[in-house]
């Protein structure tokens, strides 16, 4: 087992070393990346599956010359749960990426692939690290490699800016994590995670401090509202296979960190759970509301990631809340729903980013207003996008529905069984989740309807055509996973048993309500059968009486052209003027009409992230202004700096005399 795990870690590293000298050869390096990730995935998936099926955890220790003991590797069921998406998504993204970057000229693609492989290896290492140093090094490596992947198109000013925001955000996160790990290893007296058991005795207010540090530090990576600001910047900027890997896999590792923290700290009080669920639902509402006003298809998907991470946190928060209140059946449903949603999100968000990548690849634009009519030109991609959209809006019979249904069941059971005041927040969450669900329909009907259906709104869209099979197979495989989980959820839920046991920490696990699943299964199969039957009837009828094909009814207007058709901005106008709060509305820039004979006017609409632009920007500008006052330190003359060194030395001497007593 341990050897297999090692193989899955070292193969990508080996691939990266192999790619670097060959970086001139684009196809070769893409091929090496694909082959090594596939080869790494085979033992990786095997290890993860056997751990999820109840094999004992892997624990390896290597001698290390650094202070703080050994290079400790611990892989348990929780790690395995998070490792599985890494090993499934990374080969698919690598295969896809090779074809996606095929047109790119004038770049050393090998360097890109080396960073890609190192990112995969560092994610595996983050999930397996059993020691603080190793964890932080892997974490930092993950942030840096993904930064370079985001900055792929760094000549572009927007991309540069996005990569910069990402770098700053992830380093702020690392700073918080450094504080968190320093304090916890100080308290437990060890750098090994296995000794963090000692933290269970930590006083409550310190535990709360640690918890908040972890939520903020890991929350930045997870895209938890309000720490999500890098996400809508970095995802559209990166190449699509990188966006897919980051959104579907890397974001999960932030959630992993928070979950690990919760298992280390003493029994979580109920309000921690409510806090997480509150951040979660706020993020879900915020994310989906802003997704509704984006014109950039990948930015829209990035905001949808914020939404789905929010939903996952609602499930986790409710689970923690229910454990604290002693309702382990509710906790089981909520945790199982949240974890399943995490897997589901990896599948459908990976799929959607790859599918959106196909549109970008074919038309060279991410602006939905420039797309349209692609169902006729890219039928396979369009069909995949529709399938992915149905899955992500949690509609039956796809997988998203199963996980959201479990979360709903947890909320409903909790809301009805807990005493009044305790149940009320859960009942409110039910309705807010329903609101999120309805808005998700708005967002994804818009995404599909505007960018894929209808008429092409630009010349690029009109002349687009489908790419190679390598661009289609990876998203198709992911969509197949969505359908499989949707139609047959029980085997997958069985895999969640081991991580959930580690999280609830009780051996007495009530069984999932299996009777409900048979009922649900019946309903879903009946739905499919009826749809199939009706479609067949429809088809036969259409075959007998072929339809007359004519132009779309233009309500009497004889010459409608494609630019008159509804676009993304128009579709969301009603929502952003009458549904969203004022702060979330996009800025509309237009000149007023002044003369009697109006001249040509331009109207443009741009949505910026309110948290980034109105909150953080102000805060950091303030700090930057304060720092300006320290400018006088920098005199720019050598003697002054020598004086600083001299003064520091004196200061240190005085301090050491005082502390060590002149001995």
């Amino acid at each position, binding site marked *: 087992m341990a050897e297999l795990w090692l193989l899955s870690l070292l193969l990508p590293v080996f691939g990266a070393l192999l790619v670097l000298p060959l970086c001139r050869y684009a196809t070769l390096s893409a091929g090496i990346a694909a082959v090594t990730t596939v080869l790494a995935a085979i033992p990786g998936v095997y290890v993860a599956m056997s751990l999820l099926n109840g094999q004992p955890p892997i624990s390896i220790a290597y001698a290390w010359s650094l202070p703080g003991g050994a290079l400790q590797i611990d892989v348990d069921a929780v790690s395995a749960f998070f490792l599985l998406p890494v090993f499934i998504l990374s080969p698919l993204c690598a295969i896809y990426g090779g074809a996606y970057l095929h047109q790119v000229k004038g770049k050393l693609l090998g360097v890109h692939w080396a960073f890609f492989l190192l990112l995969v290896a560092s994610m595996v290492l983050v999930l397996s690290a059993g020691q603080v140093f190793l964890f932080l090094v892997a974490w930092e490596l993950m942030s840096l490699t993904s930064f370079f992947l985001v900055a792929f198109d760094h000549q572009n000013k927007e991309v540069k800016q996005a990569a910069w925001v990402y770098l700053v955000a992830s380093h702020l996160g690392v700073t918080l994590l450094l504080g968190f790990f320093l304090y916890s290893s100080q308290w437990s007296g060890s750098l090994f995670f296995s000794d963090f058991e000692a933290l269970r005795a930590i006083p409550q207010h310190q535990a709360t401090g640690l918890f908040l540090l972890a939520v903020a530090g890991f929350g930045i990576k997870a895209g938890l509202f309000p720490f999500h600001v890098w996400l809508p910047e970095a995802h559209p900027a990166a190449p699509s296979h990188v966006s897919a890997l980051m959104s579907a896999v890397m974001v999960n590792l932030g959630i992993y960190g928070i979950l690990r923290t919760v298992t280390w700290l003493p029994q979580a009080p109920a309000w921690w759970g409510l806090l997480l669920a509150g951040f979660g639902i706020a993020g879900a509402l915020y994310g989906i509301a802003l997704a509704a006003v984006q014109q950039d298809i990948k930015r829209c998907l990035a905001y949808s990631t914020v939404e789905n991470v929010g939903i996952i946190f609602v499930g986790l928060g409710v689970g923690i809340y229910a454990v604290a209140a002693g309702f382990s059946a509710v906790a089981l449903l909520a945790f199982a729903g949240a974890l399943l949603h995490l897997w589901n999100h990896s599948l459908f968000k990976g799929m959607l980013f790859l599918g959106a990548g196909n549109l970008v690849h074919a038309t060279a634009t991410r602006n939905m207003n420039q797309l349209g009519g692609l169902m006729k030109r890219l039928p396979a991609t369009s069909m995949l996008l529709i399938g992915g959209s149905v899955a992500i809006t949690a*509609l*039956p019979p796809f997988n998203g529905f199963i996980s959201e249904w479990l979360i709903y069941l947890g909320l409903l059971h909790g809301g009805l069984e807990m005493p009044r005041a305790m149940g009320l927040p859960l009942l409110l969450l039910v309705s*807010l989740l329903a609101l999120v669900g309805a808005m998700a329909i708005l967002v994804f009907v818009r995404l599909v309807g505007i960018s894929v259906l209808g008429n092409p709104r630009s010349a690029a869209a009109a002349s687009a055509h489908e790419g190679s099979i390598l661009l289609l197979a990876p998203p198709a495989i992911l969509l197949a996973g969505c359908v499989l989980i949707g139609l047959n959820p029980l085997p997958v839920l069985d895999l969640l048993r081991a991580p959930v046991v580690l999280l609830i920490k009780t051996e007495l696990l009530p069984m999932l309500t299996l009777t*409900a699943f048979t009922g649900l299964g019946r309903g879903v199969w009946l*739905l499919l059968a009826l749809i199939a039957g009706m479609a067949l009837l429809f088809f036969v009828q259409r075959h007998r009486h072929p339809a007359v094909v*004519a132009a779309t009814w233009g309500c009497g207007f004889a010459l409608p052209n*494609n630019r*008159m058709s509804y676009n993304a901005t128009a579709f969301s106008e009603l929502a952003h003027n009458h549904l969203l709060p004022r702060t979330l509305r996009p800025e509309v820039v237009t000149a007023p009409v002044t003369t009697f004979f109006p001249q040509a006017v331009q109207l443009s609409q741009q949505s910026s992230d309110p948290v980034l632009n109105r909150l953080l920007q102000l805060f950091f500008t303030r700090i930057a202004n304060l720092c300006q006052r320290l400018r006088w330190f920098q005199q720019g003359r050598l003697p002054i700096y020598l004086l600083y060194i001299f003064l520091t030395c004196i200061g240190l001497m005085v301090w050491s005399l005082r502390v060590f007593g002149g001995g």
Partner: protein
Amino acid sequence: MIVGMLIHLLLLLLFAPLLAGIIARTKALFAGRRGQPVLQLYFDLLRLARKGSVISKTTTWVFAAGPVIGLVVPLIAALMIPFGTLQAPLSFDGDLILFVYLFALARFFTAAAALDTGSSFEGMGAAREVTFSCLAEPTIMFALLVLAKLSGGLSLDILLGDHLNASWRGGSGPALGLILVCLFVVLLVENSRIPFDDPNTHLELTMIHEVMVLDHSGPAFAMILYGAALKLMVLGTLIVNLALPWATPWWALNLLLYLAGLVLLAMLIGIVESVMARLRLVRIPQVLIGTTLISVFALVLVLR
């Protein structure tokens, strides 16, 4: 169970188009006209099913998926609710979520089919439909939560089952009354009725649901009309079960009571459509937010 399903489906398929006729007759009565035959929708469906169709050259398979799913969804949803005292043949813990999300599935494909034509009018209708239902969804959830809290169950069969009679008599009457109002408003929104939408107007600009189906014709249009009628009956059943919680020992009488309740509901819709004007589009969200608040209040009353 299979027999139960067949009875449910037969009842639904045979009875639903009648309601549209009753609404039309009620409106005609108010306007002083004789009106169309009560069975007009049955004739329309038969006629449309035999006709050929014209489809837009822009459309793809999504255009056909709209009517198909719009017709299938109410059929499945109907299996999860009791018709009067006739128990739901498909019932499990948490089926209320499936109920709500099934209608969301129908909405997704109806709106996608509308956008598939590339017509800006239909795009407008699709945008309105999905936007307004964002506000209707929390209301229906809160209403179901009130019922769940009162009945202590999580399947619609229990939510709309025997407990209602006792709940009305007990202290929960006001809360039930409030959610009855809320559900009636949701029924009007979801079935695109005045004051939220006007199924009979000829101005595409003012419509919501009807404008989405402008391009459908022949059998596809029949499916849409039939689907709308079924949806009216399914959502109406929620209200009728809630408002008429009496059961007699005779099942035939119970069934008649239920069907009479549906007819009464249809007449009520007809009256509302006759005496009210259509709301301005921008007022609709305000009304819906109002009903959401009422339903929250009902939930608070129950939790008190």
